[in-house]
């Protein structure tokens, strides 16, 4: 078993989870933690039931309802019948199969990718899956975490394994110091803008470099979260002192002697010197500026101080046609100044930017200011515990006084499965992860950006450079 070749973090986690290797290279990969939500699991549990199968490791399986839960008062249940049926189905399934569950009335309820790290369920060196593409978030802890479809959800429930082929290794190095006014969101938007939405296809991305090391866990989670927007199923950051300090004392993290043993193991996980990557990309953090998206793909990034690009500058006819379609959908014209674009709605939340650090950043901009007339601005904490923490710091009062709505935890307007949706033609400054057509509601127009930039849009009524609002 002695392995002498220098290995990457990904290689080490992968190798330690291979149960069996089939002749064609497909591996039966062991899965340590399985996170489950209401939208992609009902058909999987039904499959188990029909086949008379049980959940192999209920204690390694955690469920929470997040995608279509209302973010208004929920004490009287869910009004919308289809959403209610999905949540009730999840509740029946977790009871029948013995899976741990954080109910809607529990302060620990929230977006599955906020809850996992917050509870210490997600740990370095683990394999973690969930029927959701933003499972890549958990890679910030040094875990191999990726999204799967419902058939695979059923496969993991039944066998605690998946059939997978190893991905290629991509290294994204971000060195230099991040300038004032820029955040982890700007780093990941800059990366996606550079490599494109298919740039990471077939790869797992390891983020490294001094700008990544300098980030807190919230920032690292924002970066890993959007790996899928660069086409990579998973993003990883080597565990370090920041990771260990974050995990220590969390409810499901190891404690006592187990903590010491875990820590010793976690320290062996970072990539070996000289480990080989199939693809390497380098970015200078010092050159990053606050970014927003202008189109309907997350790769369509532009500095907030820039202008709407001209489709005629694209190299191929197909790309020119695609960009024209985007501009038409977004209601923008080439050459238009980004800072002249007025917004109708501001959404601060999601698994990308729904943590306490994100709410602090938004509140710092909103403090003593007012949401611009005609703008609807909402803050949706990523979990009930994030909401409580914000309230303990008085952030809710700052935001409410500024005119923001202060809501209950859930995925909310990131994907508009609950009543929080854009109306056709409405334009939104959003801290979420996808600007696809109709993503936040049919006909809705999404501009992705950091929480501070979204708050700046709320108080100015247009896309605005947060550096101009600094105090």
């Amino acid at each position, binding site marked *: 078993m002695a392995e002498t070749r220098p290995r990457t973090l990904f290689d080490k986690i992968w190798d330690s989870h291979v149960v069996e290797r089939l002749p064609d290279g497909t591996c039966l990969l062991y899965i340590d933690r399985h996170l489950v939500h209401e939208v992609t699991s009902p058909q999987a549990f039904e499959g188990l039931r029909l086949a008379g199968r049980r959940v192999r490791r209920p204690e390694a399986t955690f469920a929470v309802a997040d995608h279509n839960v209302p973010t208004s008062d929920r004490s009287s249940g869910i009004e919308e019948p289809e959403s209610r049926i999905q949540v009730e*189905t999840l509740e029946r399934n977790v009871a029948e199969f013995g899976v741990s569950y954080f109910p809607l009335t529990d302060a620990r309820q929230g977006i599955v990718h906020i809850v996992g790290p917050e509870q210490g369920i997600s740990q370095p060196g*683990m394999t973690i899956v969930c029927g*959701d*593409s933003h499972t890549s978030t958990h890679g910030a802890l040094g875990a191999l975490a990726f999204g799967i479809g419902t058939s*695979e959800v059923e496969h993991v429930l039944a066998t605690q394994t998946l059939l997978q082929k190893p991905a290629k290794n991509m290294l994204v190095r971000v060195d230099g110091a991040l300038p004032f006014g820029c955040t982890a969101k700007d780093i990941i938007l800059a990366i996606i803008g550079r490599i494109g939405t*298919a740039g990471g*296809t077939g790869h797992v991305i390891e983020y490294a470099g001094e700008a990544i090391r300098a980030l807190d866990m919230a920032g690292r989670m924002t970066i890993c979260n959007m790996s899928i927007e660069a086409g990579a199923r998973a993003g990883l950051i080597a565990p370090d002192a920041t990771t260990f300090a974050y995990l220590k004392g969390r409810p499901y993290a190891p404690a006592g002697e187990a903590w010491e043993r875990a820590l010793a193991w976690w320290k062996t996980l970072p990539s070996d010197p000289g480990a080989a990557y199939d693809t390497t990309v380098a970015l200078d953090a010092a050159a990053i500026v606050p970014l927003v998206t202008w189109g309907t793909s997350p790769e369509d990034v532009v500095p907030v101080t820039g202008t709407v690009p001209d489709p005629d500058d694209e190299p191929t006819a*197909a790309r020119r046609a695609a960009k024209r379609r985007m501009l038409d959908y977004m209601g923008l014209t080439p050459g238009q100044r980004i800072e002249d674009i007025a917004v109708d709605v501001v959404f601060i939340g999601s698994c990308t930017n729904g943590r306490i650090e994100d709410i602090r950043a938004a509140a710092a901009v909103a403090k003593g200011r007012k949401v611009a007339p005609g703008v609807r601005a909402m803050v949706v904490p990523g979990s009930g515990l994030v909401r409580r923490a914000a309230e303990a710091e008085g952030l809710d009062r700052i935001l409410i006084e500024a005119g923001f709505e202060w809501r209950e935890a859930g995925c909310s307007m990131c994907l508009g499965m609950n009543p929080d949706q854009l109306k056709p033609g409405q334009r939104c400054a959003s801290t979420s992860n996808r600007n696809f057509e109709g993503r936040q509601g*049919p006909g809705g127009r999404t501009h992705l950006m950091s929480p501070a930039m979204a708050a700046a849009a709320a108080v100015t009524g247009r896309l605005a450079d947060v550096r101009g609002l600094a105090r």
Partner: protein
Amino acid sequence: MQPFTTLTGIAAALPLPNIDTDKIIPARFLKTIRRTGLGKNLFDTLRYTPEGEERPEFVLNREPWRRAEILIAGPNFGCGSSREHAPWALLDFGIRCVIAPDFADIFFNNCFKNGILPIRLPQEMCDLLAADAAMGANARLTVDLERQVIVRPGGEEISFDVDPFRKHCLLHGLDDIGQTMAHAAAIDAFEARRREALPWL
């Protein structure tokens, strides 16, 4: 799962790049606890006006492509979410094979679990097949998985790659879980070793 052996059918071309899973099936249609019935909302916003009328220019609203069983798509098809509702919607509509220059990983994987064959071909080949598809019912394509070839209307063959294990599963309509259950002893042994080495997991 229905086996996939040979498919002869009408192909529809949808060459837009980056067709994401929200375009394939918008999130508001995911509030179902079943796998079926999603075909009517396949490509919903491309296919219907906000009032719910069919857009006559959209390929799947036109004869003969309403009956398409093969889709010739653009690069990075299926990017975005992990929702298996995307292949379920394609299957429910009647599409069993998608051919594109490249696919997003999760979507690609999900297709195989549902008896849909996704095929990666260079852009030039996709362009040829899209031109065939434009000829409609007189230009059916045949996809032969056993031989790994696409037969064009004139009889010319284009070969394609497929992972041997996935090919085997598709040809025989095999359930992954049943196969993995055959490795139960290996999983038990792995778990026992792991409990010893890393007991907190």
